[in-house]
């Protein structure tokens, strides 16, 4: 036990010093808290009289800091206090370098925690990894949800759609389904030290474009290169330094909802990992892997630790391995498989390499993601089967709303995908957009405020099914500008709305969301996370109350979802995608063409 004298050298008491006083007492130390604004002579006199082990000063106001602290140190030295007593100083006006210059044993600037002050008093290094560590565990977004339908009419329609879909999909396959099986065989063979050359050859025959060239000749595209061992070694030093600080405190308050996810995908694996570590440091709960758009149009994945000059980070087993291993155990890792020609293998790699979540939606990927509906339906069917096998929950994204598809059509597609996923044993997560999309603009749904329409989406989905909800992606889409302050603010307010309506997670952008002149910089990621933290802190468990319009909008959404699903029972899900039931060209949705004609019956040979 130590005896500690605490003295605010300000006209007013420093709240921080009071908190430290309480923390020291709780830790079993004896403390004496002096009144504010005592002259240095009286503080030194009190320290001598009380025979303390440690003196902690605080200074909040910025003027004459150097003079005040220098006078105290001179007096402490003259009185013989300096040699036998630990001297510390902290507060808003203190910079660590100033305290050291003045001769204090410890100096603590703004943001110092009680745990840090306690470690100083106890004469031990502050270690967030040991006893002072912030404890974080990896949450499960789907925990506690029953997936029971509250709207039995919609349940009946979805059951019918799923029955039709399962029959249609049962005997169909695609090159992506075949490649996923080959990749699994290759991973297993490598684990057993077996030769994979024949499997690799067979895999290469199912590839196109850059991937076909890679397996034929080993060539990489001009914009892709292998990351060197030297780069990785330097990167691991950076990661080790980041990890030595331990996990950051929760961005949410005491584990309250929502979890906060943010996307990476600069193209460069090294930069991505560097960004991911700072996202963790500023307390993001999860990170989302964003892959290149050309990857979605190319059959097959390359291999190796690869860097890409352009947006989106290439999916390879090796890249996912390195990203996954750079993360703290509590950080959720999502790999998207919602579009393109490699969705089953994406989920397979995510499952094999320790990712915790994936992203699948047949309607979005085929109406706004460029993939042929029939092809994506078969690939997603296999992807959802694999997700269930690996225990990977997946969000069902509805970003087709950004193309102009009305929310009710996007939601109908989302619910159909969710229902198929449930039939396959999966744990899907609803992902409505919190955005100012074309529908909202055209219909004036957000003319008064940004709360009602977003809240209506959550109200509508909650009235349909008891399932987790994770708005994205990112929240506030199309409300961001290039202004850093406005961008962080709109994201933060949308995140706060998510918290107020009790969603399970939100995906957030950086403050560079609307800046198109270059890649996202690290500082812009930090700025948004700081804003979101402040917004969640500001509102806490207080509610944001939508106007009566939200309920009306929610009822309208549900009614229109019923209409769309009724139509889909007549056409079937996949045919309905081609026919525009879930979004048509007038809405801005076009059935994708990538992979068209590549689905075959299982009795046929796809190789």
């Amino acid at each position: 036990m130590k005896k500690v004298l605490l003295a605010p050298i300000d006209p007013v008491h420093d709240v921080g010093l009071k908190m430290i006083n309480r923390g020291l007492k709780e830790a079993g130390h004896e403390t004496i808290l002096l009144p504010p604004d005592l002259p240095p002579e009286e503080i030194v006199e009190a320290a001598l009289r009380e025979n303390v082990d440690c003196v902690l000063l605080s200074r909040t106001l910025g003027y004459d800091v150097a003079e005040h602290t220098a006078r105290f140190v001179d007096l402490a030295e003259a009185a013989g206090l300096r040699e036998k007593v630990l001297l510390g100083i902290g507060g808003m006006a203190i910079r660590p370098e100033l305290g050291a210059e003045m001769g204090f044993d410890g100096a603590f600037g703004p943001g110092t925690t009680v745990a840090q002050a306690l470690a100083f008093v106890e004469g031990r290094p502050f270690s967030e990894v040991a006893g002072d560590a912030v404890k974080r565990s990896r949450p499960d977004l789907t925990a506690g949800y029953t997936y029971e339908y509250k709207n039995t009419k919609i349940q009946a329609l979805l059951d019918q759609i799923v029955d039709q879909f399962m029959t249609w999909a049962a005997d169909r396959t695609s090159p992506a389904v075949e490649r996923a099986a080959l990749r699994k065989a290759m991973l297993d063979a490598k684990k057993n030290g077996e030769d994979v050359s024949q499997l690799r050859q067979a895999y290469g025959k199912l590839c196109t474009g850059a991937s076909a060239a890679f397996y034929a000749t080993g060539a990489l595209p001009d914009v892709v290169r292998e990351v060197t061992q030297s780069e990785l070694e330097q990167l691991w030093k950076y990661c080790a330094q980041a990890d030595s600080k331990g996990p950051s405190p929760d961005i949410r308050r005491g584990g309250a909802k929502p979890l906060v996810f943010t996307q990476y995908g600069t193209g460069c694996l090294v930069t991505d990992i560097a960004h991911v570590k700072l996202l963790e440091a500023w307390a993001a709960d999860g990170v989302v892997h964003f892959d290149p758009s050309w990857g979605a149009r190319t059959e097959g994945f390359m291999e190796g630790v690869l860097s890409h000059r352009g947006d989106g980070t290439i999916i390879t087993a090796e890249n996912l391995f390195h990203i996954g291993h750079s993360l703290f155990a509590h950080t959720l890792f999502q790999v998207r498989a919602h579009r393109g020609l490699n969705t089953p293998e994406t989920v397979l790699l995510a499952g094999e390499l320790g990712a915790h979540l994936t992203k699948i939606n047949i309607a979005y990927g085929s109406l706004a993601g460029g993939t042929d509906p029939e092809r994506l339906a078969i690939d997603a069917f296999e992807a959802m089967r694999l997700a269930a096998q690996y225990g990977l929950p997946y969000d069902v994204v509805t970003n087709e709303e950004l193309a102009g598809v009305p929310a009710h059509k996007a939601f109908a597609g989302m619910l159909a995908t969710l229902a198929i996923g449930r039939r396959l044993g999966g744990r899907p997560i609803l992902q409505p957009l919190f955005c100012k999309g074309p529908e909202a603009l055209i219909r004036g749904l957000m003319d008064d405020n940004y709360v009602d329409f977003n809240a209506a989406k959550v109200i509508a989905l909650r009235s349909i099914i008891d399932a987790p909800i994770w708005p994205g992606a990112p929240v506030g889409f199309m409300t961001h500008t290039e202004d850093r302050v406005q961008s962080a603010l709109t994201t933060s307010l949308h995140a706060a709305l998510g918290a107020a309506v009790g969603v399970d997670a939100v995906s957030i952008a950086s403050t560079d969301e609307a800046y198109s002149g270059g890649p996202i910089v690290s500082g812009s990621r930090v700025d948004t996370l700081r804003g979101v933290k402040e917004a969640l802190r500001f509102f806490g468990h207080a509610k944001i109350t939508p106007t009566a319009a939200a309920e009306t909008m929610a009822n309208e959404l549900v009614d229109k979802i019923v209409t769309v699903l009724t139509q889909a029972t007549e056409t079937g899900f996949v045919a309905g995608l081609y026919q525009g039931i879930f979004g048509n060209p007038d809405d801005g949705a076009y059935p994708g063409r990538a992979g068209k004609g590549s689905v075959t019956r299982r009795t046929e040979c796809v190789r």
Partner: protein
Amino acid sequence: MEDGKLKPLSAMLDGLDIETFFMCRDEAEGRNLMLALLTQLGFADVDIVFIEHRGPGARVRGRAYLHRPGVSHPFGGQSA
């Protein structure tokens, strides 16, 4: 601490943002002032992230990229 021995640019992960308020006639002048500032500081890969001109001048945020993903990074990166 001998500041002369510190190499702050080599510690930057990706870019440097500079924000200020320029007294200027219009947005174009504000843009030129920021680009000139960044160039005069010795940066080559520069841009305006945000600018808003009102009344007496412009609120400006300029950016200099030290590293672009896939081109270089501070961990010994090379060109793709």
